[in-house]
């Protein structure tokens, strides 16, 4: 397509190049690059399933254009941690049963990560407010709330150690 251009995206610490037209969303670009852990739920910014961190801030990647992200640090849920070195949020989501169908989990965890960077000791209501843009149909948010709270505790403890 004539309006396409190559864009270099720094995804989970690695530079990746993709040729995309101006209207291509970050969500589509990431998935085309194989980052299918970023989920497509509505493509309208209603559900939050596609959330990623762009320079540390959680954004709906379906509302963000790929061209705008050149030079930014993009972090998906897979960039936060893995089985060998899990992020406290991931550990808490597993241990406390916060993932059911798991389709909202990548966006939910990323949104929580962005939020916990700002608020280290949140109340239940802080967490509810922060995650209100991330829909879940399975959990009633109960165990998600527990997990985020527990992760905040783990992160404070880790912070205290260093």
């Amino acid at each position, binding site marked *: *397509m004539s309006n396409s251009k190559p864009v270099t995206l720094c995804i989970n610490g690695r530079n990746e190049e993709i040729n995309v*037209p101006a209207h291509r969303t970050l969500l589509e670009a990431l998935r085309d690059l194989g980052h*299918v*852990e970023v*989920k*497509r*739920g*509505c*493509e*309208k910014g*209603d*559900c939050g*399933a596609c959330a990623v961190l762009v320079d540390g801030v959680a954004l709906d990647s379906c509302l963000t254009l790929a061209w705008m992200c050149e030079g930014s640090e993009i972090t*998906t*849920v*897979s960039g936060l*941690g*893995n*089985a060998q070195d*899990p992020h406290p*949020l*991931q550990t808490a*989501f*597993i*241990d*406390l*049963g916060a*993932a*059911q*169908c*798991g*389709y*909202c*989990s*990548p966006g939910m*965890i990323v949104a929580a990560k962005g939020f916990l960077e700002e608020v280290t000791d949140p109340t*239940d209501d802080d*967490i*509810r*407010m922060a*995650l*209100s*843009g*991330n*829909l*879940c*149909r*399975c*959990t*009633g*948010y*109960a*165990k*998600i*709330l527990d997990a985020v709270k527990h992760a905040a505790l783990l992160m404070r403890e880790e912070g205290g150690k260093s």
Partner: protein
Amino acid sequence: MTCVDYPDQTAPNVKRSQIGKPLPRTDAPGKVFGSTRFAGDHTMPGMLHMCVVRANVASAILVALDVEKARALKGVVEILTAADMPTPDVQEEISGQDRTNGADTESPILAAERIRYYGEPLALIAAESRDIAEQARQLVEFELKPVRGVYDPLEAMKPGAPVIQGNSNIVAERKIRKGDAAAALENADFIIENTFRTPFQEHAFLEPEAGLAWVDENDVVNIRVCTQDIAHFRAIADAIGVPHNKVRIRGALVGGGFGGKEDCTLEKFLAVMARKTGRPVRLEYSREDSFVGHGKRHPLILRYKTGVMKDGTICGLDVEIIADSGAYLYLSPYVLLYAAVASPGPYRIDNLNVRARAVATNNMYTSAFRGYGAMQACAAYEQQMEEVAKVLEMDPIEFRRLNYLRTGDPVATGFVPPGAIWTEQCVDLAWKAIGGRAKPAQGPVKIGRGIAAYQQSYGRLSFLDDSSEAWVGVELDGTVIVRSGVADIGAGQVSALCQIAAEILGVSLDKVTVYSTDSAVTPMSGRTAATRTLYMTGNATKKAAEAIRTRLTHRAAQAFDVRQDEIEMADGTVAAKSNPGLSMSLGALAKICRDEGISRTELAMFHQTMQDNLDPETGQGQAHPDYVYGAHAVEVSVDTETGEVCVLRSIAAHDIGQCINRAAVEGQIEGGAQNGQGFALSEEMLYEEGRLITPSLSEYLMPTSMDMPRVESIILESRSGIGPFGAKGIGEPAITPVAPAVANAIADAIGVRVYQMPITPERIVNALAQKRQSAGQMS
């Protein structure tokens, strides 16, 4: 979470190393690290991208469909219309329904001439990219001639109403008759009559429908898709005119189902296009496609006429149910039966008359949704119980107590469930936990509390065939493999099988791998629906694992020269109880069995004994294998000026028989509370002449994290269920009593009832205005 040690609690019937504990699910790590691949995450080299062209009105004749401009677009590979479709669908038989009105069970793959609902598929496009497919969709031209439609089931029943299909709009009917309801109502001290209405509901799973299909070297159409039922390969094969063994469904972990992925969604589109083009094809629904592309929850109109004696006994009940079936039948006859069987609730009513009818309209077709008619019935009967108690001037809990079904009592169809009936215990515990009646609040914001009890079946209808198979094997290193066709739709179905195998074979969870949801290589275990998976496939897995255990312990007993019942299997080790020195690893025992030709694998089937259909006139017989009982209590605040409702507390008490994974059980309860709360308060599908005007998640409002209180779960374990270890089920029961509990709490808060869900602020304000008006007229 509270685990209640109720006096009736029966003792655990097995020595359990992990059953019943809150354990991390085996599917959780993949989901939180992002390594789980959902159906829409798969691609193939050379694949084409599909999209669906849909009708933009609900009732019309398709006069012309011109795809030539679209076909001419560079990059468009194929466009299919009804003319290209293979043999007509084979119509499914509906047990207990004569189908004399001639209506089709399901919509055709693509509409040929008559459009019967908004969004009905007209054409399929396959192109080299998503963008091109989308551009081609804009270029498809069609001419529709509007035909008078009907959008209200009551209108559709009137003489002269447009007939959707065949010769009548009444597409299914079910009756239940017991005793003499008419005579009992005549002799009643009071008769209370009310009509309740429940709305359409969208499943709103976070994962829109998606799939990838290709034809392989054996001419088998492979379809990788998110589905609750891999057995659809047969219906797909019939629809596209190939033998059953030429279609394979490979499911995936499903990003939420709730019944919305129980019927075929996009499988047939994928199958026809893959065969036609010979290339892999991929189709992902947009959210709007998902809203218009799968069946909804049946809206029901439920008229209740209850006769009671002054002492509070219910002497007779007459129920009339009208269900909006939409443009095609789908699962309506079954959903209708669930509603009819459930309609008296968990109460003993000897004189009962139920007449339920499903009516065709030009609305979106309706089909399976968690609770399946029984939850809509609960929304009515538990509000009715409160209204009857009001007339009797009795405490509603005490009124219920006079009428509960108790263990050993027959349900509406005359069948005595094998399991315990602990409604009373659950209601008392939930009501106590919420603190009983709320104190009246001053000011415009009122506080109210409500409760609802329920009966919800688990297991498929008893007159339908139901079997489930599972294969279990012990590897030479002592790890365990389970193969089962079960679809995990997010509730932890696979993890539960893992636990069951681990429990029986004495290994830890991480030593078990489950291969699931592939119609070619995993034994068929039926659909994930009807709260049947743990019951059916759990039993099959247990049976298979036990057969292996028997052979292994027999061989170990020989090796150690002890009796077979002396052998223990735990932590991957096989040992003699009496002598700790006599032990070997499970792997070592497996190798001995290999050398001697003792099988370490087993394929087991669990079969639900098929019963005769219910009597068509009286509805008497066995409808379901067993039932779950429980209650939900809710506290709300209602702003009487704005109509705003906040759910402050939400407490569930369920007798689930036996927890397999306590955390997963709580998860079901918490999600059910959310799903039911949305149904009661905010989820509204608005249609204008059949056209959905709320096809997005910003217009269709399901509860967010801001709307949900912390749900409290009180879990009772009667260990009386017919599932593994005495389990019943919790998938559907979790939602069933929630909406009427919310409705009763609102009525308690504001002193007036809203008879139509969702109970929106507008409806509350209107009801309060009406109440003031009628109070003004009286004074």
